[in-house]
């Protein structure tokens, strides 16, 4: 190390020639693992991920600030409200704020957290909620319910997908840490975020459109009778409604069921619990052997 680099003997924090504070690798790693393993352990209605964020930042706070008063101020700052997607988004935000907290840029850190948690939650929730989870869930469930003989593969697929998603948390953190403030500029500059969410939505909708009939196979057992003339003799014939429906549009009952459930949620604005109860009651009554509306 050159003479121009000062070393704080007690905590290993160094300062370069141009005044940039460099944290020891062990502190940066410790902060990363705390964020990765425990961010939401103390999730609560009031300030959501705030305490987890502070816990992850504590190694940095203790390394950078030497007086008790400074540490108290820093701890109180990080106890304010924070919530974003913990898997895609938060590692990058956290990495950037670790780098900036080391420079004692308190105001920049606070505004970065507030400014980025919204947009990145939008990206993270879309990737996971609209793309990753539905695609993996339907593929996996299809392996089980479709009698493919490969049902053991389903949970393996799910665990693998989640491990792959977890693996992206490391580069997110290190990119955030190295880019620091640049990251904030990139995200807040861009129509990139909304364009990405739009593309993900489009892909998601095509997939969902195909997955609905692949999973839902409900049919109807209803029949109607019609008069037919056979060999000059009039008679009656029982016709299954399902055969007629299949001739017009396949998977008609599944479309009807999803539309009905969608109407319960969006039209009647019912919450999940009530929508589920109503669907179960309608489904159960409709599938009684005496009625056979559903089969």
């Amino acid at each position, binding site marked *: 190390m050159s003479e121009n680099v000062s070393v704080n003997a007690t905590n290993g924090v160094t300062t370069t020639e141009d005044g940039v504070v460099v944290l020891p690798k062990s502190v940066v790693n410790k902060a990363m693992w705390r964020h990765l393993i425990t961010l939401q*352990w*103390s999730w609560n209605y009031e300030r959501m991920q705030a305490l987890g964020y502070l816990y992850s930042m504590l190694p940095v706070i203790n390394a950078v600030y030497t007086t008790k008063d400074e540490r108290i101020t820093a701890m109180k700052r990080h*106890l304010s409200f924070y919530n974003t997607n913990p898997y895609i988004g938060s590692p990058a935000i956290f990495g950037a704020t670790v780098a900036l907290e080391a420079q004692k840029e308190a105001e920049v850190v606070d505004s970065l957290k507030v400014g980025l948690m919204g947009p990145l939650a939008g990206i993270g929730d879309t990737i996971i909620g609209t793309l990753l989870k539905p695609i993996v869930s339907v593929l996996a469930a299809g392996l089980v319910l479709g009698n493919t003989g490969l049902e053991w593969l389903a949970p393996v697929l799910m665990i693998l997908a989640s491990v792959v998603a977890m693996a992206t948390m490391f580069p997110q953190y290190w990119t955030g840490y190295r880019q620091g403030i640049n990251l904030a500029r990139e995200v807040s500059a861009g129509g990139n975020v909304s364009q990405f969410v739009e593309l993900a939505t489009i892909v998601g*909708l095509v997939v969902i459109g195909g997955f609905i009939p692949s*999973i839902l196979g409900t049919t109807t057992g209803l029949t109607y009778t019609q008069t037919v003339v056979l060999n000059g003799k009039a008679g009656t014939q029982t016709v299954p409604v399902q055969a007629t429906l299949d001739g017009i549009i396949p998977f008609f009952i599944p479309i009807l069921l999803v539309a009905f459930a969608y109407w319960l949620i969006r039209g009647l604005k019912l919450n999940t619990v009530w929508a589920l109860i109503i669907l179960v009651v309608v*489904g159960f009554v409709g599938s009684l052997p005496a009625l056979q509306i559903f089969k």
Partner: protein
Amino acid sequence: MGNILIAFVLALWAYIGIVLLLGPGVWFNEPLVSGLFTGLIVGDVHTGLVVGATMTLLGLGQWTYGGATIPDYQVGSIIGTAVGASLGGANNAAAIPAGIAIATTAALLMTQLDVLGRATTTIFIHAADGYAEKGNDRGVALMHLLGQLPWGLTRFIPVFLAVWLGKDAINAAVAAAPTWLTASLKTTGHMLPALGFALLLSMLPVRKYWPYLIVGFVLFAFLKLPLIAILLAAAAIGGLVYLQQRSAQVNV
């Protein structure tokens, strides 16, 4: 394994599953994965996978946006699998439908406990405020780490009690059920994913982008393409829209 030991192991799995979700997001708490684990413990993997797959589909689109409470399909699939397996699994036509019915009910009841758990953790952040004021970083750290207890215990306790004490009572009730009841339950179980899809769609701007939904439907329902082909087509359509948007930007 004795009943109480099985109950303990399954309860521990539920605890670990939720804590992992709160951390790195490894999906041990996914109903399908929990169904497999429960199936392995009670010796009926097939029942576990079928109950778990149904619960996974029911949970489609139910992402805890901003911390919303959703039914707990993990706990549902653990209890439902334990019940379905003890009724004979694939060897008894009533077993798996009954397991799915129990799983759905348990998942719904769990919403109350989820709210309780999320509310209880507020105590810890208030205690952490106090420790931070005094500059006690160890106290702050401890409060955070203890935050997992309300989350984990609101899963551990119901699974433990339901599997240990509830199973025999549920089994007796199901054994007495007539066939028309179990037949209807089975059909109803197959309909549950409709709600999962509807919830997923309600999160998306369907009114604006409905043509894409129809494209996907036509690919499967009329052209009978396999799911992987639909995934690829979806990616290609996304790519085309992106290219078109980019050239539109350049031309301006």
